[in-house]
């Protein structure tokens, strides 16, 4: 399923929110098997970075290069709140041609919730459902925005395990989180390191 050689690179990236410059001169390059942990306080620009890397927004400056399909996990699940979880996920599984959807549901301990409408799920359960959607996509590049928030300890360990497996199979993962992940060999940086100095904050 994986594309031959996935790549995620950013060159001299700068992003704003409103009139405020969040970060600038941010360059990164992840190749097959690479994982990167973006740290930073709330509002520092992690989500903005992820959306720019996904090319959902146009960065203020710089460019993004990507090879391979992309899966995005953020606080918005993309699952219809009125549908039972099983049917809401089935829509994406069918669209993404996901192979063994039952195994994915089992892996994320969602089988028992298949009949529950999405709007009744807890934050952690919704997060697991969104992870199931990401797994079903079988994309080589993962962008995970706060994948650990709202999850219990066991599920947090599962996220780390999923990222390890994904990278072992040659995938790329970029994770924005203020919580630690257990992934050996993972690069990490704090987004504040690229924040503009006060005197250049009028860009």
């Amino acid at each position, binding site marked *: 399923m994986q594309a031959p050689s996935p790549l995620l690179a950013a060159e001299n990236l700068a992003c704003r929110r409103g009139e405020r410059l969040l970060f600038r001169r941010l360059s990164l390059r992840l190749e097959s098997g690479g994982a990167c942990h973006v740290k930073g306080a709330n509002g520092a620009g992690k989500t903005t970075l992820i959306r720019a890397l*996904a090319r*959902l*927004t146009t960065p203020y400056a710089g460019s993004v290069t990507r090879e391979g399909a*992309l899966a*995005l996990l953020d606080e*918005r699940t*993309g699952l219809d709140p009125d549908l039972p979880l099983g049917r809401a996920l089935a*829509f994406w599984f*069918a*669209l993404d041609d996901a192979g063994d959807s039952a195994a994915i549901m089992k892996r994320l301990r969602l089988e028992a919730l298949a009949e529950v409408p999405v709007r009744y799920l807890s934050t952690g359960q919704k997060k697991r459902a969104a992870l199931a959607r990401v797994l079903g996509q079988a994309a080589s590049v993962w962008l995970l925005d706060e994948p650990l928030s709202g999850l219990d300890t066991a599920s947090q360990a599962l996220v780390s395990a999923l990222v390890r497996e994904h990278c072992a199979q040659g995938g790329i993962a970029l994770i924005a989180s203020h919580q630690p992940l257990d992934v050996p060999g993972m690069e990490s940086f704090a987004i504040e390191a690229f924040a503009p100095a006060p005197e250049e904050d009028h860009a």
Partner: protein
Amino acid sequence: MILALLRRDLAQFFPFTGSGAALPVVFFVAVAMLFPFAVGPDANLLARTGGGVVWIAALLAAILPLEKLVARDIALGFFDQLRLRGTAEEAMMAVRLLAHWLSFGPPLLLATFPAAALLKIEGESFTILLLGLLAGTPGLAAIGLMIAALTASLRAGAALSGLLLIPLALPILIFGAGALARQDQVSLGFVGAISLALVALAPFAAGAAIRAAREQS
């Protein structure tokens, strides 16, 4: 991809099945039912004014589903996820337009039968009314979609969209209801032409609107 999307959108908006209730159609029939109570049972008066009432009811019924039409799926991240899979916003909006029209156009046309009976609209007038609605509702759906996409990122979007639709729908209303008053089928051609132009334009305008909304968030 497109078919799966259409199925999903229809399930969302179709009366009685999805979360979209049958409210617009019920509303439409309710107006036709209340009108004779308000102006009295004079058959001549009803037949003369009834067609206009049906048109106004159709226009108002088209406003009701706008709130959920686009804003909900932006908040869900649904369009973002489709974008990542390479679907163009214009395609998403074209599918949404078709689903929106299917969910309120044909039910409205069916509801025109009881509504026309209540308002004593018969014969030639009824044919012109039905054809006019058939030609006009796609245009109403297209205006609705554009407005829903443009106002999706505004906080008071739902209230605003109703106000915005009314002036934009005036040409359809003038020609559609005018055809009825003059018993003239030529005006129906104008309704159809306006509708076609709007339907062709709407996916591009609405697609650009949801892209712009994304840049803001």
